C-alpha cells in the first residue's frame, strides 16, 4: 500500500508499491498520447516556434476537451482564435509535466522538491480529469457516489475498477497537495 506524501526536511516524500508505479506510469503515458497533437504540426515554422497552431480546432474527445478547455465562453470565434494561439504550448506543457512525473515516480521513496511536486500535482490532476470524464462525473453527487468503491473487493466491472483507480489517485493527489501546503507554510 502506498504511503501518503509528507513534507520532510529532505523534500516532499512518499512511497509507492511497484504495481502502483506501473499503474500511474501507464495512466500518464495514456494521457500523453491523448495530448499529442491530432494533426501534423502547422506548416508555418515561425508559427510553430511561438507555439501557435493555425489548424487547431476544439478537441472532439470530451476528456481532451476538459484538459484543453475553451478560454473564452459564449463566443466560439474568439475561443477558437485563443485556442490557435495557445493550445500547442499548453499541450506541450502538460506532456512535459506528465513525462517528468512518470520518471519521478521511479524513485523509491519518491522525494520531490517543490517544483517537482507541483508538476506531479498537475499530472495527477490531469489523470483525475480524464478518469472523471470516462466515469461520467458531472455533478458533485456523482463524485460522492464513487467514494463507495474503497478496495479491490468492490470491483465488479471496468467501471468500478476505474472508480477504484480514481479514488486512489484522488487520495494520492490530496496527500501531495497537503504536503505542498505544509511546505509553503514552513517557508513563510
Amino acid at each position, binding site marked *: 500500500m502506498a504511503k501518503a506524501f509528507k513534507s520532510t526536511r529532505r523534500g516532499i516524500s512518499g512511497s509507492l508499491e511497484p504495481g502502483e508505479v506501473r499503474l500511474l506510469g501507464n495512466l500518464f503515458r495514456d494521457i500523453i498520447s491523448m495530448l499529442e497533437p491530432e494533426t501534423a504540426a502547422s506548416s508555418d515554422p515561425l508559427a510553430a516556434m511561438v507555439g501557435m497552431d493555425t489548424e487547431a480546432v476544439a478537441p472532439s474527445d470530451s476528456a481532451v476537451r476538459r484538459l484543453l478547455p475553451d*478560454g473564452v465562453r459564449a463566443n466560439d470565434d474568439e475561443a477558437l482564435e*485563443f485556442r490557435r494561439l495557445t493550445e500547442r504550448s499548453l499541450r506541450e506543457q502538460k506532456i512535459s509535466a506528465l513525462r517528468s512525473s512518470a520518471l519521478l515516480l521511479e524513485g523509491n521513496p519518491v522525494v520531490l522538491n517543490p517544483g517537482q511536486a507541483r508538476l506531479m500535482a498537475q499530472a495527477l*490532476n490531469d489523470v483525475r480529469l480524464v478518469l472523471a470524464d470516462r466515469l461520467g*462525473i458531472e455533478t458533485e453527487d456523482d463524485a460522492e457516489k464513487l467514494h463507495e468503491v474503497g478496495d479491490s473487493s468492490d470491483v465488479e466491472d471496468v467501471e468500478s475498477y476505474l472508480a477504484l483507480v480514481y479514488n486512489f489517485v*484522488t487520495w494520492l493527489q*490530496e496527500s501531495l497537495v497537503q504536503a505542498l501546503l505544509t511546505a509553503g507554510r514552513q517557508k513563510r
Partner: protein
Amino acid sequence: MTVGFATDTGTKEEVKSEEGTALDQPWIVLVWNDPVNLMSYVSFVFQDYFGYSEAKARRLMLEVHEQGRSAVASGNREKVEQDTVAMHSYGLWATFEKAGSE
C-alpha cells in the same frame, strides 16, 4: 469541487483587499467550479501561481465552490490571457472576459 480526506485548517479571513477597480483593470479571469478538482488543490494553485496568501486563496476557492465561479485576477488583456492558460495548465477551468461584461 470535491474534498479529500484531510480536514480544513480554519485559518482567519484577511480583511484588506488588494484588487484594483474595474476601470484600471479592464479584463478579468474567471475560474469555474467543477466536481473533480480538489478544494485543497484549487487553494494551492491560487497561492502558487498568483502568490496569494493562504487566506485569500481559500476565500476565492470557496467562492468558486459555493457560487460556481470567481473572478480570481484582473489586468490588461495580455495578462489575463496568460493567467487563463496558466490555470488550464493546472487543470482548472478558466475563462477571461472584459470586466463588467454581464
